[in-house]
């Protein structure tokens, strides 16, 4: 009697998957736990936190802490209460910074990929050095520059700073994306009679959507979350939300209001979360996409 040998790999694969997913779920939970704690705490009242545990499900559900953080807490000695004025400063700063640094990056990348000049590789190498620059090192010289330009302690000065130090990254993004586009496209457009700007607007920019999204998300996150430049190069009227949050949480007078601190931290983080949710799938696609096919 002969026994048929069985090569059955069905359950082997499933077992492996199950272990993998289990590990992933545990890691994800571990990672999400602090966020969960923040959200839960922000909806509790201060009495509840005082008498209860630090980690506990809210017994009463209240938005008071959110309202307080937004426009009721006294931060520093300013007249406008809450994080709202700081939040608005951040928005005024982040929008022009992101748009300008992305635009310059796209233009730089376009030139460095398709309109190479003598020394353009060296130029690119120097620009890359900007990506590795520790920003602490340039605080002093840069503040002198801002002073000489007459824009220190202003939103404009912050915008200028973020654009200058963001261009290194955005140029890298766009340049590395554009070198994968076929150079024959440019040749064809030249023969069709298009010039430098026409080729950029009509051919290259329409192909840049994935990398535009990457650049915008990256710059938005960097600039919105920046604390160093925000705290050094601003005055009370231009301080961004990261500085506001710090001032709020670190105020040493009165009771520590954990619920307000948590709500404030979430408010300060919301815009970046929003940007990721809206454009996140493009972000992953753009970072991994080597080139446009077609």
């Amino acid at each position, binding site marked *: 009697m002969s026994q048929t040998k069985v090569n059955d790999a069905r359950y082997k694969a499933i077992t492996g998957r199950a272990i993998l997913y289990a590990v992933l779920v545990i890691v994800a939970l571990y990672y999400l736990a602090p966020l969960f704690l923040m959200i839960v705490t922000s909806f509790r009242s201060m009495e509840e936190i005082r008498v209860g545990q630090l980690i506990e499900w809210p017994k009463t559900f209240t938005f008071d802490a959110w309202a307080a953080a937004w426009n009721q807490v006294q931060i520093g000695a300013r007249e406008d209460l809450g994080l709202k004025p700081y939040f608005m400063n951040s928005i005024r700063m982040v929008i022009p910074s992101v748009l300008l640094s992305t635009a310059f990056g796209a233009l730089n990348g376009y030139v460095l990929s398709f309109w190479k000049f003598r020394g353009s590789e060296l130029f690119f190498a120097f620009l890359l050095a900007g990506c590795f620059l520790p920003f602490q090192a340039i605080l002093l010289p840069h503040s002198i520059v801002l002073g000489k330009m007459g824009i220190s302690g202003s939103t404009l000065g912050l915008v200028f700073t973020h654009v200058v130090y963001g261009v290194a990254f955005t140029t890298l993004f766009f340049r590395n994306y554009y070198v994968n586009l*076929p150079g*024959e*496209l440019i*040749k064809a457009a*030249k*023969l*069709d009679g*298009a010039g430098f700007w*026409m080729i950029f607007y009509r051919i290259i920019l329409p192909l840049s959507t994935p990398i535009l999204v990457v650049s915008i998300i990256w710059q938005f996150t960097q600039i919105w979350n920046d604390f160093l430049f925000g705290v050094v190069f601003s005055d009370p009227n231009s301080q961004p939300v990261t500085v506001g949050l710090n001032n709020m949480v670190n105020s040493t007078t009165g009771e520590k209001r954990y619920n307000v601190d948590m709500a404030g931290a979430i408010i300060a983080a919301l815009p970046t979360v929003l940007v990721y949710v809206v454009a996140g799938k493009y972000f992953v696609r753009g970072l991994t996409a080597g080139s446009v096919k077609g």
Partner: protein
Amino acid sequence: MSGLSIQNVKKSFGQTHILKGIDLEIPDGEFVILVGPSGCGKSTLLNCIAGLEEVTEGRILMGDIDMTYAAPKDRDIAMVFQSYALYPNMNVRKNIAFGLEIRKMPKQEIEEIVDRVAKLLQIENLLDRKPSQLSGGQRQRVAMGRSLARQPSVFLFDEPLSNLDAKLRVEMRTEIKKLHQRLGTTIVYVTHDQIEAMTLADRIAIMRGGEVQQFGTPQEVYDEPANIFVAGFMGSPSMNFLRVEVGGADGQYHVLVASEGHTYKLPSPPTQADLSAYVGKQVILGIRPEQLTHVMPHLESGPFVTKVAVKVEVTEPTGADTLVLTRINDEECECRVHPAEAGKPGEMMDILFNMEKAVFFDSETEARI
């Protein structure tokens, strides 16, 4: 419409000399092919003609206008690229119209031209598609359509068929030839495929190392190659090259070949070469496989035909003929015989050496004698 005159064109990148003085006179309406191995400078020359690269020295004239330093858009030239270079973000209609739009042509006129070109190339049903939705052959057509739309006086093709599969390549080849016959526009076409060169060209320029080796009609370069490189490059299977010794006197010369212990005297036709200076010396005999056939009675009595017994080493059937690889003068030699007459590997068979079209090369300069 105008011819193209390339005069002593040189192109260098620092110390690297890509083009070393190219001279080509191309009359109006001629289909010229630049062919050669990779790195021979053929694409660089094409880019220089297009104005995409500046020449280091020399002149390029279109008609009687010196275009050496004109901008690409002012040269009245259209180019089809190897990668087709269709604008991925535009549909076919926009792709074709782009160059016309930039030249500020009225909308009405653009539409008429697009329709006419689409009809000519049978891509009317593709006009609203994006390039990514097209097959290789369709992209190829659109790329040609884009260049046709502008009605340039010179077309440049940069290896346009090399991304297509074998069958489509043959189809498009015929198509391009038909197009040229209908339009009668000057074409300069770069390829590394010698069959493409033979089938399409009015004249072929064979290039190597930045120099033109020979510029002539397909039949000329095939029958009367200027040197060993040209002879070996054109034709498939390639020409056989045998080192042989020259004998004879007074206008009657022959060369000696040895096969399986026998030595044969192959008479050299006086019309092919004057070997008087080479008696007693070695030359290189170039003879194409189709001149080495199985025994055919009507040929056997020819004045320059010799029967040679050879040993078959390898056979390669191609269907129409069988290629028989053998060894003569201790060098590999390919013969083209009727499939039924081909011997089996290891067997002996008789081969007719027809010397009527044989060519001879100097063994040192490699130039044709």
